[in-house]
C-alpha cells in the first residue's frame, strides 16, 4: 500500500475511535499490514501534524494505545468550549490512595487501608467512578478481595504515556541508612581521634 494511503487510513481509524484509541497491533490487523508499517505511518503522521501550522491535531501514546488529540498549544481555544477534564481536581485522600495504587498495583483495599491507617472506601469509589482505577483481578485466598490497578485514563489524566514515567517513589529508607552511616563515621572518627590523641599524648 502507498504510504500516503496508509496514513490516511490510520488517521481515519484513529479519528473514528476517538478517546478509545487503537494499538499498533489492532491497526495492523485492521489494515492488514505489518506492525512496522503502522509504526512508520504513525510517526510520519505525527511529523506531518507537527510541521503543519494549519493542523490542530497530534498523536499521543497512552500505554500501548495511540490516540488522536488536539495540540497542547490549542488548549486555551478548546477550553472556551469545554472544561478541561482536570478541572475537578482530586482530593488529598483520593491522591493518596491513587499514589499507593499506582506504585503498588495490584493491591487490595485492605492493604491500602493498612498503609494509610484509615478507611479508604470512599476515595476508592471516587477513583473507580472517575475511571482512574479499576479492578484488575482478585486476590488469592478466602475473601477473593478485589485487586485494584490504574487505567489508561490515569495515564491520560496525569499526562503520562506509560507507568514507567511516574516520578520515582521517594526513598526514605535509603536516606536514613545514609544518615546512620554518617553518624557511624562521625563516631568512629571521634574515637579514632581520641585514640590518636591518647597515643600522641
Amino acid at each position, binding site marked *: 500500500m502507498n504510504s500516503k494511503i496508509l496514513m490516511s487510513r490510520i488517521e481515519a481509524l484513529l479519528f473514528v475511535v476517538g478517546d478509545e484509541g487503537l494499538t499498533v497491533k489492532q491497526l495492523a490487523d485492521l489494515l492488514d499490514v505489518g506492525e512496522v508499517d503502522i509504526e512508520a505511518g504513525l510517526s510520519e503522521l505525527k511529523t506531518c501534524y507537527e510541521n503543519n501550522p494549519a493542523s490542530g491535531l497530534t498523536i499521543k501514546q497512552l500505554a500501548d494505545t495511540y490516540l488522536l488529540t488536539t495540540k497542547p498549544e490549542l488548549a486555551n481555544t478548546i477550553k472556551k*468550549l469545554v472544561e478541561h*477534564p482536570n478541572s475537578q*481536581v482530586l482530593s488529598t485522600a483520593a491522591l493518596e490512595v491513587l499514589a499507593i495504587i499506582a506504585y503498588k498495583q495490584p493491591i487490595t483495599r485492605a492493604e491500602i487501608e493498612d498503609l494509610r*491507617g484509615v478507611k479508604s472506601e470512599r476515595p476508592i469509589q471516587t477513583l473507580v467512578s472517575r475511571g482512574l482505577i479499576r479492578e484488575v483481578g482478585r486476590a488469592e485466598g478466602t475473601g477473593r478481595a478485589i485487586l485494584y490497578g490504574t487505567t489508561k485514563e490515569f495515564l491520560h489524566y496525569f499526562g503520562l504515556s506509560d507507568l514507567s514515567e511516574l516520578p520515582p517513589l521517594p526513598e526514605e529508607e535509603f536516606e536514613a541508612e545514609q544518615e546512620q552511616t554518617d553518624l557511624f563515621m562521625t563516631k568512629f572518627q571521634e574515637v579514632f581521634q581520641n585514640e590518636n590523641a591518647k597515643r600522641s599524648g
Partner: protein
Amino acid sequence: MYEVKLDAFQGPLDLLLHLIQRLEIDIYDIPMAELTAQYMEHVRAMQVLELEEASEYLVMAATLLAIKSRMLLPVHEGEMEESEFEVEEPDPREELVQKLVEYKKFKEAANELKKLEENAPENFTKPPSDLSPFMQDEQLTLFNPDVNVYDLLYAFQKMLRRKQLRKPLKTTVKKQDIPVREQMFKVVDVLKQRGGKSSFFELFPYEDKSTLIVTFLSLLELMKRQVVYVEQENNFEDLTVILQKEELLGELEDIDEQD
C-alpha cells in the same frame, strides 16, 4: 488550646507525621511521652467533630500508649551503652516508625501526583464517532468479550462528562449577581419576621451556590456592623442568629460591592 481543622488530617498516621514535623522530632528516635501527649490533645479536640475515622484515631492512641508503657519497662544498664550486647530486644517503636516512614513515602508521592495533575499537558480527544451507519443489520457482535461492569460504569461516566462539558455553549446567559447590600436587607427582614431570632441554617433556604455565598457575605457584614450577633451553645451545635438593631440605614454606606 489547639485549633484543629475539620479534615485537616488524612488519618492518625498523617496527624503523627504532622506532629513529628512540628515538634522537630527525629522520626527514628521518637520521644514517646511527648508525642503521645500531643497526639492525645489533638484527638481530644478532634473527637468533637465526630470524624468518620474517629475509631482509627483512638486505636492509634491506644497503640501509642502501649508503646510508651513498654518503653518504661526497666532495661539492663549494659544493653543501653554497649552495642555488642544488643540482643533480640526490638525497639517497641520500630513497627510504628516503619509504618510512618512507609506512609510518608506515599504522602510525598501523592504530592508529586498533584503536581503532575496541575501540569498535565492539555490534550483533548473526541468521543468515538457513531458507527451505526457502517453496521450491518444482522450485526451480532456486541461487545468485546472482556467487557465488564467497570466498562459499564465508565461508559456512563464518560457520557455524563461529555454532557457536562458542552454546557457552556448552551447556557450563555450569565446569572445576575445579587448585591450583598440587597441581601443584607433580606436577612434582616427574615429575622424580623421570625421575631428577631433565627437558626443559622434557616437563613439559607436558597438553592444556588451564588445566592448562598452572597447571603453568607451579607451575614458577615451584618455581624461586622453589629446589626446581628451569633450565638452557639456548644461547639458544633446549631448557630442562632440574633437581631440587635432594627434599622439598617446608617450601616450600609461603606459596603464594598465587588462588581
